[in-house]
């Protein structure tokens, strides 16, 4: 199973190699993925899967487009 992963802004430094087709385990949640990538949970504010906002306990599925976004407030 693979997801297309995009880490935004300050989280981009946690982008793994081959993020466009990143292998996930069956039953893996967003929180599991975030832990595996080494992203401090406090730095992750917004998760979206296939264009919908989800909570970190959301399960990942093959082909999901996953976006990870930190707090952004600059103007």
């Amino acid at each position: 199973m693979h997801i297309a992963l995009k880490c935004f802004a300050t989280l981009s430094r946690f982008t793994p190699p081959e993020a466009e087709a990143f292998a996930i385990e069956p039953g893996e949640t967003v929180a599991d993925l975030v832990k595996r990538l080494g992203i401090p949970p406090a730095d992750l504010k917004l998760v979206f899967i296939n264009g919908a906002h989800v909570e970190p306990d959301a399960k990942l599925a093959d082909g999901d487009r996953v976006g990870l976004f930190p707090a952004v407030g600059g103007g």
Partner: protein
Amino acid sequence: MPLSLTLDESIRALARADTRPDGGQCQVLPYFAVQDLARGLGRSPGNGKGHPHSKAMARVELAALELGILPERYQRNSTTYSFTEQIRLLTSRVALIGLGGLGGHALEILARTGVGHICAADGDEFQPSNLNRQLLCTRRSISGYKAAAAAARVQQVNPAVDFEPVAAYLDEELMERFLVGADLAVDALGGLKDRPALLHQAARAGIPLVTAAVAGQAGYVATVLPGAKGPSDIFGADSEAAENTLGTPAPAVVAAAALMSAEALNILCGREPRLAGAMLVFDLEGMSFERVSL
């Protein structure tokens, strides 16, 4: 113009036939004719208060639009905004909070497009580090109030706009007063701290909020309808903000300001908000845009 002519008659007399961008024909009121007619109105009794020239310009432009005659300065808008929509823009009121990177560019777009009433608040003064992105920050305006530079710019760009600058930071109580009478709030604040209060006050005022923020090459734009969840509910007021590490380069700031202005104009001219309940998330480094429903 002889004094015996009414404003409508004068407008008709001065209008000329012209070609629209889409090839159609329309009647256009030349730029200098608007100014001349407004000057004539400015001398009439009852126009001595406030900003007579600004109000007179707006009155001439509105009268022309009501007659189906397009003021020349809006000619390149005419296939995007109908006469009815242009009238709605000229009679609408925006409360713009923040006159930095987002706010300066948003103000420029709203004023050029012909939003009739704009009140804008920012208590900050320009610093050299604003020069990388803030339209209103120039060698001349450094150390001056952002609100003062904004007023001067609107006067240069479109004096028909009734512009009210407020050189003050708004706490939640002042926000509440600032939003009275506005059709729309535009959140062009910097940082996370004040955004939840503005979202809350816009909801209390019963008006939509268009909001945007950037960090580095990434950013978002969103519309929050009264009572709905917004980005500041997700990001909070006290989180460590990504722009503290990544900064705020011009392309992301200007892109976000343009997107938020397009959405603000959609709403003001009576169309459905396109980003209600959603964020448009972008990354200019990878040139990606994604709509996320909240």
